C-alpha cells in the first residue's frame, strides 16, 4: 500500500447561475487502493471538518453500471482508463501528481453545481421515441419472437450503454450521436423495434438536435472513451435509420 500526496484542481461553481472557477486543494496520505471517488470522499470529509463546502459530484452504484459518475479527469472523461470514474483507482496516479477535475462540458449538459451537470436531455431524447409501444399484458409468448444469436448479441452490445454521457464529454463537438446511435440501433436490429422504426429515428434525432448537441465528425473519441466500448457503427446505423426514415417514410 502506497501513500501519496496530490494537488487537485477542481471546478467549483455554487449553482447553475453562478460563475465558476478552478480551485486548488492539496491532499495528503491518499492510499493507492482507494477508488477515485473515495479519494474525493476523503477530501470532502476534510473540507467539512475545516468548515468548507464539500465538492458536489454525481455518483451512486460505484460498480460501473448506473452511469451517474461523470468527471473529466485530466481532460478525459472518466480519466485515463476506459472505464467509469467509480472504477478508477488511485494506483493509476503517482505521488505528487496534479489532477484536474472538471464537469462534463456541453451546452446540453449545463452545470448545476461543482461537478454535477444536468443530463436530463438524454431522458428527453428517449421519451421522444426510445421504446416499443407495448402495453403491459399484451405481449405474446417470449419464444414466439425468435431472434438469431448474432443479432441478439449485436443488439445487446448497443444496449449496454449506461447513459453516463462520456461520449458527449469526450466529443470535441459535444455530440450525443453515440448515445442516440446506440439506442436507435438496439431497436433497429430487433424485430420488436420494426413497427415504429422510422418514426423513432426521426423523433429521437429531432429531439437530439433540439437539445443543442453538436454533430458527429467521426473522430471516434466518444467510442474510445465509452466505458462500455459502444462502437462507431452505431452512429452509422443511426445515420442510415434517419436518412431512410426521412426519405422513404410516408409520414
Amino acid at each position: 500500500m502506497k501513500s501519496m500526496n496530490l494537488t487537485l484542481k477542481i471546478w467549483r461553481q455554487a449553482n447553475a447561475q453562478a460563475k465558476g472557477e478552478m480551485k486548488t486543494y492539496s491532499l495528503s496520505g491518499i492510499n493507492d487502493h482507494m477508488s477515485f471517488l473515495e479519494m474525493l470522499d476523503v477530501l470532502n470529509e476534510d473540507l467539512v471538518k475545516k468548515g468548507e463546502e464539500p465538492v458536489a459530484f454525481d455518483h451512486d452504484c460505484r460498480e460501473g453500471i448506473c452511469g451517474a459518475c461523470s468527471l473529466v479527469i485530466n481532460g478525459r472523461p472518466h480519466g485515463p482508463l476506459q472505464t467509469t470514474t467509480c472504477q478508477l483507482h488511485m494506483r493509476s496516479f503517482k505521488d505528487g501528481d496534479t489532477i484536474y477535475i472538471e464537469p462534463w462540458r456541453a451546452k446540453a449538459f449545463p452545470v448545476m453545481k461543482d461537478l454535477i451537470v444536468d443530463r436530463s436531455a438524454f431522458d428527453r431524447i428517449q421519451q421522444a421515441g426510445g421504446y416499443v409501444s407495448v402495453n403491459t399484458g399484451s405481449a405474446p409468448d417470449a419464444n414466439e419472437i425468435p431472434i438469431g444469436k448474432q443479432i441478439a448479441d449485436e443488439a445487446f452490445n448497443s444496449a449496454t450503454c449506461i447513459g453516463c454521457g462520456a461520449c458527449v464529454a469526450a466529443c470535441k463537438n459535444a455530440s450525443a450521436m453515440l448515445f442516440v446511435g446506440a439506442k436507435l440501433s438496439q431497436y433497429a436490429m430487433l424485430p420488436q423495434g420494426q413497427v415504429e422504426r422510422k418514426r423513432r429515428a426521426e423523433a429521437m434525432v429531432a429531439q437530439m438536435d433540439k437539445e443543442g448537441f453538436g454533430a458527429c465528425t467521426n473522430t471516434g473519441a466518444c467510442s474510445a472513451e465509452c466505458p462500455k466500448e459502444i462502437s462507431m457503427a452505431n452512429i452509422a446505423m443511426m445515420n442510415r435509420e434517419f436518412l431512410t426514415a426521412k426519405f422513404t417514410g410516408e409520414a
Partner: protein
Amino acid sequence: MTLDSKIPAGPLEEKWANHKFSLKLVNPANKRKYDIIVVGTGLAGASAAASLAELGYNVKAFTFHDSPRRAHSIAAQGGINAAKNYQNDGDSVFRLFYDTIKGGDYRAREANVYRLAQVSVDIIDQCVAQGVPFAREYGGLLSNRSFGGAQVSRTFYARGQTGQQLLLGAYSAMNRQIAAGKVKLYTRTEMLDLVVVDGKARGIITRNLVTGAIESHSAHAVLLCTGGYGNVFYLSTNAMACNTTAAWRAHRRGALFGNPCFTQIHPTCIPVSGDYQSKLTLMSESLRNDGRVWVPKKANDSRSPEDIPEDERDYFLERKYPSFGNLVPRDVASRNAKYVCDEGRGVGATKLAVYLDFADAIKRDSEPVIRARYGNLFDMYQQITGENPYKTPMRIYPAVHYTMGGLWVDYNLMTTVPGCYALGEANFSDHGANRLGASALMQGLADGYFVIPYTIGDYLAGIGSEKVGTDRPEFTTAMQEAKDRIARLLSMKGTKTVDELHRELGLTMWDYCGMSRSGEGLTKARDIIKNIKNEFETNVRLMGTNEEMNQTLEKALRLADFIELGSLMVEDALRRNESCGGHFREEYQTPDGEALRDDNQFAYVAAWEYKGDNQPEELHKESLAFENVKLTQRSYK
C-alpha cells in the same frame, strides 16, 4: 391493531384468479380522475408507473436520481427467474413456488409466493416484447441457466447486466407514458414524508434536491417502490444513495414494518481494504463453481498464499460440507467465512477475508478456459484490488446484499396505512428469511407490472375520485415538520461528519446484527445505537443551507432514519429466538452449527408498529400457515 393479510380463500392455484375477479374495477372513463404517486423508479416503480399510466391513471413518479435509469435495480447481475419450463427440465409454477418458500426458510406467505411464481412467466413475455435483449441460443430462442444452486434452468439473463436491461425496459415503457403525458416525472426529488388525511395516505412531502424547495403533492394513493435498506450497514453492495427514508417515514405514519432483521449477506464480495472504503462490490456467485475457498490452518499466518503448502491449508467448506463443498448456500458460506476470520485465520492486510483459489481449476481446465468463463469478473477484481487472480488467489468476504424485511403489506401490497402501497424490495412479502438468487428482479417486476394494476383499482373504486388539496392542515403540518428537521440539522454545527456517524452505525450493525447474532451482542448494540443517535442529534456537522444542492444534508436526512431503523432491526433480531435464513442466532443452532428454526413459536411475520419518538415499538404477529408445503430442516452435509 389486527393484521389482515387479505389472503383469498380457495385452493392455492386459484387464489389469484379468484381474487382478480372479486376485485372492484374502476370504469375506464373514470381512471383519469385518479392521481397516483409512485416513489422510486427502479424495477418496481418504473413498471408500476408505466402500467398504471397505460390503464389511464394520472401518475406522478419521483426519483432522487437525475434519471430513473440510475435506480439500483440496474446493478443486478445474475438474472431473473421464471417458471417457463422452456428447458423441459421439470420446472413448473409449483416448483418455483416451492423453491422460493423453502429457500426463504418458511417465513414467507404461501399465497404471495405462489402468485409471484404464476406471474413470473408473464414478466419474461413483457420484457421481451419491450426489446430487452436476453441471452439467446443459436436457434433464436431464449437461453436459460441454473442459478444459485437451483436444480432447474429457469434463470433468464442478459450477460452480467440483467438488472440494467430489465430496468431500461421498464424505463422505456415509462418514457412512453411520459411522452403521452400520463406520467409526470420528478427527478432529483426526494420523499421526506407521507401525508395521511383521515386515515388514508393522500400524498407526500418532497425536497427538490436542486433548489431545496420543500413541496407537497397530493394523490389518491401512494406507492413506495423505494428499495431496501442494506445501507444501514454503511458498507454494502447497495448504491451509495439507497436509503430507507421513504419506507421509514411511512412507518412513522402508521405503516407496520415487517421482519426488519432479515438481511441477506452475499459470500463473494471483494473485501474491505481500508477505513476510507465506501462501497462493497459483489462478485458473481458463479465463481464458487470453480474456486476453492480456504484459509491457513494456523492463526495469524502472514505468509503469502503461494508459500503456504497444501497440508497447511484449511479448505473449510469442503471439510465441513463434503457433499456441497464450496457450493453451500449463501448464508452458510458467509457464516463460515466469518468463523474462520474470528479465529484469527483471515487473510490479507485486514485479516477479514478468505481465499478463493482458482489454481486447481486452471491446472485442470487451462487458463483460457477459466478466462472464457470468468474473464470479466477476474478483470473487475484486478481493477479494484490491483492483484492478478490468475496468479494469486482472490480474497473474498461476505457483504450485505439485500434486505428481505420491509414494509408489511397485505395480499394487495397495501401497507397498514390505507392507500399506501409498498412494492419490490421495499416490502417484506415474498422472500421470507432468505432470498433465492435471481428472484429480486422477478419480484420487483411482478409487483409493478402484474399485481398493483389489479389491486389498486379495488381500493380506488372504494374511496371515490374526490381530490384532497395540499392546503389541508395535514400537508402543511408535515411540510413544517420536514422543514424543522432540516433546520435543526443545519444549525447544529457539531464536530462529527455524517459519514463518520454512519460508519459507526454500520460497524455496530455488522458486528452485532450481521451474519451472526447473539442476545448478548444485540443488547450491546442497542446501547451503542442509542449513543450514536444521541451523538447524531447533538453533534453532527453539516455544511451549507437548505436552499441549494446539498449532498451532506441529503445524507444526514437519510442517516437519521437509518439510525432508527437500526435499533428496530436489533429489537427484531433479539425477539426472534431462532435461527432462520439470513437471521442466525448463535444460541439457536444444531450441534453441527447449523441454523435451528423454531416453527412452533416463530412461524410468523414480525410486524412492528411505531409508537412515537424513543418509544419501544409494538410487535404484531401475522402467523404463517403452510398448507401446501411440508416444513423441513435444511441440510448441506
